[in-house]
């Protein structure tokens, strides 16, 4: 993996174009669910590399899963699910869950703070906490329910795809730690090739619905999965058809223009009315009493 640039491609709440001088290869993380053994080495590596404080105050819920959900200081999680198949067999799925690094990130679209969310030319979507105002619109904009608000600092955080490591030519910490090659990192093009080969293998082994999870509703993602049962993404805790929501598109599209029209059109209309008709004069006039 060559050193990939952290050239910025898109910046939240910014109308001027991003610098975008250098081209960078699109990177991706591939998660081959069929070869995950649920060891959680990736979770540990993530906490260690990102120096995230551990939380010991959260309840355990009697599951193999480390925590019920992602947290502001817990950016990736293996979801353990027990699925009863139609033929009566039990399937135990283990699915690494984290930010998907969408090509069309709903969080970035929703963010009102300039520079709080950036998308690099290599596809990584990163939160810049210094610029974050803690409004939580990214949480609403995200179709994967990933960003988490730290109530103490009022800042939102999530998986960075180890943008700091990637910028230095290293693979993300979770990938470094994976003992089964369930996780791999590289250019998206190359990983899609590997994923297609893996899907063929799975099909030969009887997984008729094996497939790749790279949802088109968000323009594809830079975290892609090989799923043995790609017809049932819910079994892995993945949304079936994630997309940038219609509410977000309305808000940042037609309603934005309507808003500007009302503000500036309203002021302009008042001004023109005054030029044409002036103040409302009355015959006796409201002269101050003598």
């Amino acid at each position: 993996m060559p050193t990939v640039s952290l050239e910025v491609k898109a910046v939240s709440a910014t109308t001027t174009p991003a610098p975008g001088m250098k081209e960078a290869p699109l990177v991706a993380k591939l998660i081959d669910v069929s070869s995950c053994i649920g060891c959680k080495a990736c979770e540990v590596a993530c906490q260690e590399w990102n120096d995230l404080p551990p939380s010991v105050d959260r309840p355990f819920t009697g599951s193999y899963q480390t925590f019920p959900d992602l947290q502001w200081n817990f950016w990736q999680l293996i979801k353990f699910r027990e699925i009863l198949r139609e033929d009566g067999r039990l399937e135990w799925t283990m699915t690494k869950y984290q930010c998907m690094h969408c090509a069309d990130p709903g969080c970035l679209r929703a963010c009102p703070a300039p520079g709080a969310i950036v998308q690099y030319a290599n596809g990584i979507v990163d939160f810049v906490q210094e610029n974050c105002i803690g409004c939580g619109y990214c949480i609403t904009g995200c179709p994967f329910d990933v960003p988490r608000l730290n109530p103490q600092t009022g800042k939102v955080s999530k998986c960075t795809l180890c943008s700091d490591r990637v910028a230095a030519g290293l693979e993300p910490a979770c990938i470094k730690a994976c003992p089964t090659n369930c996780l791999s990192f590289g250019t998206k093009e190359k990983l899609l090739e590997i994923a297609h080969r893996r899907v063929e293998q799975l099909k030969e082994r009887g997984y008729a619905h094996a497939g790749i999870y790279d949802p088109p509703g968000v323009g594809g993602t830079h975290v892609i999965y090989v799923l043995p049962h790609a017809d049932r993404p819910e079994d892995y805790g993945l949304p079936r058809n994630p997309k940038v929501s219609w509410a977000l598109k309305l808000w940042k599209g037609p309603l934005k223009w309507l808003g500007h029209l009302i503000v500036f059109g309203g002021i302009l209309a008042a001004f023109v009315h005054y030029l044409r008709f002036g103040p409302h004069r009355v015959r006796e006039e409201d002269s101050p009493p003598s």
Partner: protein
Amino acid sequence: MADRDEIQRFTMAERLIHWAVAIFFVYLVLSGLALFYPSFYWLAYVLGGGPVIRSWHPIVGVLMFVFLAAMYLKWRRDMRLDDLDRQWLRQIDKYIRHAEGVPEAGRFNAGQKLLFKTMSLMGLLLLLSGIPLWFPTRFSRNLREWSILVHEIAALVAIGGLIAHIYMGTAVVRGSMRAMLTGWVSRAWARAHHPRWAREVERPS
């Protein structure tokens, strides 16, 4: 004050409530525009920065709603539309052009009454839709999406109303700013702008 050539239009309480709503509302419009449209984000810097307006916008919103509710209770009887008001609305173009033959207005004209009703309703919608946006982690994503749209549309209607109201009150109907500040208007002003109300007040009791 019987010998004075002026009549009282707004009591001290009415003026206090009006200006509390006005100041809070202007803050909410400026900070809200910064939060909703990136082209207005510079307002955030003027108002102390993004995190500051993110904290204060909802709190000021609740404060405004309290005063808006007080205003509603105080004025709701004076704001009922009657038959003459409906005639007024049908001939609103005459009012806009300052033409003759506009049906006589009471204490408030039909335009003011409609503005009052609209602003009260929008205030309620803004409060209800604002709560999920205030505490995003406590409500479902679906509800937050609806809240954003309701909050935005209600805010835009209210901003339109605010622009019209400020323009009418400062530039067009001269004397109304003084009425809202001091509480008093001249008899001539009352007869010209609110003839039915002027007769009512001037009638010897």
